């Protein structure tokens, strides 16, 4: 299982635009997002339903369903342009270099085939030479790796004979059987009980350490992010509003939306009478997105400019940036202060 460790950039997404061409008009589900992911790194993508986080991930693996289309930007995986690949090259890529696991393990396994059949199939899709016995052996090793006991029996069982947590383990085993470089996990713990969630997260962390693969972890649960991710991207209405190392996002959030998300999360150390603070308003109508910052209509700090122009990214620290006019203002104030400090220094130097 131990692979020779690669370092550096695994995935680079630049200014990605994805649109859905519906009868009612074009819906810009993803409107220009960029990020990098290194080998051996876990990135969380956080956002509410409809923020484009899944759509963005599906375009990496080429699973966008019609009428969705990538309309701009680039996706580079291990130096190769993913968007330029042909259909058959994409089939070769899926499951082999990039694997994906989904939200609901209850419906993601085909009910009429055994676990073994579905695992072996995933391996055989990319390794045509592998013999039946060898494939079965590999499948059983994978099941053991994801913490399933009694593997020989499990191989012959059908999905409905396993619990939800067990099925998600099978899904993970199936994803990892070809040793992918990148694993995209689309809300893999959302449909599970809290205790099982913790186990699955623990397992993913452990496997990630063993395999050194990159993981994109899509979730709306910030607790999960804190548990597993190295860095976080916060998405709102198809835009990446803030991006940064996990500690910065939690302790020094730069965007009002991130702050809102953090406030609406239950905390263990909170007093019992404290209420959670929801983010007021409703998500944007993606058919008619507002001009300017999409979050402005719900933002308590909104200024005039927020409703007119999309803010640029402002660097807040090492690899930490946010797109908010407040931060632009901060930056300008800072520069002014620096300048006055400089001038006063100059003045004092002069004297």
């Amino acid at each position, binding site marked *: 299982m131990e692979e020779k460790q690669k370092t550096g950039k695994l995935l680079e997404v630049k200014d990605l635009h994805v649109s859905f061409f519906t009868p009612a008009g074009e819906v810009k589900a993803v409107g220009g997002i960029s990020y990098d992911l290194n080998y051996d790194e876990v990135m969380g993508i956080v956002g509410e339903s409809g923020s484009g986080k899944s759509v963005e991930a599906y375009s990496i693996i080429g699973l966008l369903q019609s009428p969705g289309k990538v309309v701009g930007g680039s996706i580079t995986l291990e130096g190769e342009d993913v968007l330029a690949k042909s259909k058959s090259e994409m089939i*070769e890529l899926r499951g082999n270099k990039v694997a994906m696991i989904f939200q609901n393990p209850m419906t993601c396994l085909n009910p009429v085939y055994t676990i073994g059949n579905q695992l072996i199939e995933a391996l055989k*899709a990319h390794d045509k030479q592998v013999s039946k016995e060898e494939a079965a052996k590999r499948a059983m090793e994978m099941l053991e790796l994801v913490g399933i006991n009694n593997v020989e029996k499990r191989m012959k069982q059908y999905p409905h004979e396993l619990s939800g947590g067990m099925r998600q383990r099978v899904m993970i085993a199936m994803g990892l059987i070809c040793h992918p470089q990148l694993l995209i996990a689309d809300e893999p713990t959302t449909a599970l009980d809290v205790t099982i969630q913790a186990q699955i997260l623990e397992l993913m962390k452990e496997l990630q350490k063993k395999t050194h693969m990159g993981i994109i972890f899509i979730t709306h649960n910030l607790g999960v992010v804190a548990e597993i991710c190295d860095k976080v991207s916060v998405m709102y209405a198809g835009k990446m509003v803030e991006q940064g190392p996990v500690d910065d996002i939690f302790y020094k959030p730069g965007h009002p939306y991130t702050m809102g998300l953090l406030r609406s999360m239950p905390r263990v150390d909170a007093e019992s009478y404290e209420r959670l603070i929801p983010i007021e308003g409703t998500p944007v109508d993606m058919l008619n997105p507002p001009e300017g910052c999409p979050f402005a209509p719900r933002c308590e700090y909104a200024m005039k400019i927020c409703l007119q122009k999309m803010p640029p990214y402002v660097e807040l620290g090492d690899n930490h940036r946010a797109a908010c006019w407040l931060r632009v203002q901060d930056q300008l104030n800072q520069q002014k202060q620096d300048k006055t400090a400089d001038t006063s220094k100059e003045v004092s130097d002069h004297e």
Partner: protein
Amino acid sequence: MAKYVLKRVLMAVLTLLIVTCLTFLLMNAIPGNPWLSEKTPTQATIDALNEKYGLDKPVIVQLGLYLEDLLHGDFGVSIKMQKDRPVLDIITSMFPVSATIGVIAILWAILVGVPLGCLAAYKRGTWVDSLLRVICTIGISMPGFVVATILLYLLAGGIPDWKIFPTIFVGTWQSYILPCAALGFYPMCYLSRQTRTAMLDSINQEYIKTARAKGLKNRKIVFKHALRNALIPVITYLGPQIAFTLCGGFVVETVFSIPGLGRYFVQSIQNRDYPLIMGTTIFLAAFIIVMNLLVDLLYKLVDPRINLSKGGN
């Protein structure tokens, strides 16, 4: 499994008993009697005939006697259509003809209908789908005798110098083709529509997304993952349909003058040939029950989630 089958067989016997009693009572409730025809016999003759075939007794007594005979495997004799020929003999000699045509008809309906349904689902929204929709709607809504007549006209002499198939059934292989085509057209269209719906349903399931994410080829996704799940509703429809088709389409047998069982269903009622009505009805009912049982057992093969031992019906 054995327990389940046993339970089902007991249920079947009970169902058959109810069918038999109901048919017997309803049949006797129809006005008229077997002896009415152009030349109405004298009352004395009718009395004598009634006495000979036991029709002079009260209906309940007749039913009891019939059930007793049935337990001995005796279906009685035809009293009108083929006078004094045992009903069982009529069924066993007529059924093979109907069944042969029925089997061929249902086979082509499955072999063509299911793939066409897959094709329509796969090409949803294109002209292929629209064309198939038109054909199938015609097939489902057009009565069998119209299909048979059109076929006869086009391929068996309606167009001058263009007679490929015989007009009436003479037992050669050519004479099987038109009846089978006419009989199988409706189930083919119905199956195709049903397969399309089931395929569209299963192709939108999440396990198809998983299969795609695994990097499987399209062919494998459609035929391995989608089709097997789509077959479940299709099998449900097939059970009773096979029974009906094998027992002979009345219309098709009449149009092509086929000496099959189908016309006995209808004509025995018109003729008030009581034992023959009973015999054919019980035969069809038993056949449908058996097919339904087979279908339920087949479910288990296709869908492992089905557990027959726990309240299986």
